[in-house]
């Protein structure tokens, strides 16, 4: 039961402190509405346009590619952990250790190649390039 007290206390404190600070600052701060305060912060430069600019679709493509390939590397870790042990052990042959991971990487490479060939990593095509690609 005393475990619960600790947890409960933590939760309580965790809630109370931010809420209390927000309450205090609400009570203490002067209220001076001013449009400049709502302006976009651009490191002191004069802001040009709003925050809601449309990014080029290429950003998304690259981000997605990065995301996927980056996360796939996570799957290399468990393999890497057992790799040395497996090499030293006589029970498994080298093909059995290397094979699956090579196949995995090959599949990733095929994917990358496909993405490349389909222009996913081609940066910022000019309209003329787009025309010529069609």
């Amino acid at each position, binding site marked *: 039961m005393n*475990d619960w007290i600790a*947890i409960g206390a933590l939760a309580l404190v965790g809630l109370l402190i931010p809420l209390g600070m927000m309450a205090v600052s609400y009570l203490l701060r002067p209220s001076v509405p001013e449009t400049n305060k709502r302006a976009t912060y651009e490191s002191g430069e004069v802001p040009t346009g709003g925050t809601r600019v449309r990014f080029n679709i290429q950003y998304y493509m690259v981000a997605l590619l990065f995301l*996927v390939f980056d*996360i*796939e590397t*996570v799957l290399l870790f*468990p393999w890497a952990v057992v790799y040395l042990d497996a090499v030293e052990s006589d029970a498994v042959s080298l093909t059995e250790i290397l094979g699956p991971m090579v196949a995995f990487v090959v599949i990733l490479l095929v994917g990358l190649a496909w993405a490349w060939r389909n222009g996913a990593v081609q940066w910022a095509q000019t309209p003329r390039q787009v025309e010529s690609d069609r």
Partner: protein
Amino acid sequence: MSVAAGVEYYVLLSMGLFCIGLFGILTRRNALMFLMSVELMLNAANINLIAFAFYHGNLTGQVFALFTMALAAAEVAVGLGIILVLYRNFRDVDVTVPTTMRW
């Protein structure tokens, strides 16, 4: 108080996370928020897996957590793609807007 004995706290934590995610799904109308909420739910599962891997003393759960993360990333990738075409067609990422098909 060993961690192994306190596995129920992790379950509570994960359940809390899961419910927050669910709450987000039920209340948010922005497709991206929807995705984030799903991520929360998935991570709730990950917490469970890792905690129980420790509790049971095997690595199955941890490895599965890795897979979950990878798949979650893939899911987000596909999801973002769909949200992009959603925006292109409906000019919005509000998930309640597309209702051309119903009943």
